C-alpha cells in the first residue's frame, strides 16, 4: 500500500503519514484510534515505545 493510499484511507495528508512514519509527528488520540482500527491493532500496540526499542 502506498503512502498516498493510506493517507486517503485515514483522511489525512501524505505528508502527515511520512511525518508519523519518521517519528516527527505524534498523532492525536482520535487519529491514533483511526490508524489502530485500520491496521486492526490496539493503540498501545502501535505506539508502545518499549516495543519499538525492542524491535530495533
Amino acid at each position, binding site marked *: 500500500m502506498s503512502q498516498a493510499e493510506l493517507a486517503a484511507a485515514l*483522511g*489525512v*495528508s*501524505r*505528508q*502527515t503519514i511520512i*511525518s508519523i512514519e519518521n517519528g516527527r*509527528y505524534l*498523532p*492525536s488520540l482520535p*487519529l491514533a484510534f483511526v490508524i489502530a482500527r485500520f491496521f486492526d491493532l490496539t493503540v498501545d500496540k502501535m505506539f508502545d515505545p518499549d516495543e519499538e526499542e525492542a524491535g530495533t
Partner: protein
Amino acid sequence: MMTFIRPRLRKPLLGGIAFLGIAAAWAIGSPAWGLAIVIAVVAVGQTVAWYTWAGADTDESALLASRADERQKQVGLRARALAGTVALAAAYTGLVITLAVKMADAWPFAALLAVAGFAYLLGLSSYGSGEPGPEGEVTAGHQTRSPASS
C-alpha cells in the same frame, strides 16, 4: 457566507480582497491614484496565483486551500504564533525608536502592543483550562488532577 465559497478559493479570495482594500485606500488618499489600478491588478494576480498554489500537494497548499489535517493545522498555528511574536517585536522596536526620536508618532506602535496584549489575554480566557473540578478526584473517564503533579 464563506461556506458558499469553495474551500480552495476562500483564502486566496480573502487575500485578494485585502489587497483590493489597499488599492481602494491608495486611490482615495494618494494623488498618484493611477497606481491603485496597478495594485488592483496585482491583487487579482495574487488571488489567481494563490488559487493555483492551493492545488499543489504540500503543507502550505493544504493550509491555503482550507483542507489541512491536524498536523498541518498545527504547523499553521505555529507559523501564526511566530508571525505574531515577530510582529510584536517589530511593534516594540518601533515604539522604542519613535519614543526616542519623535514621541508624537509613537501611538500607533503603542496601540498595536495594547491590542496584541488584549488579544493574548482574550486567547488565554477563551482557550484556557476547562472548568475547575475537585482536586485529587478521578472520575470515570475524567481526570481532574494531572499525573505529573503527583
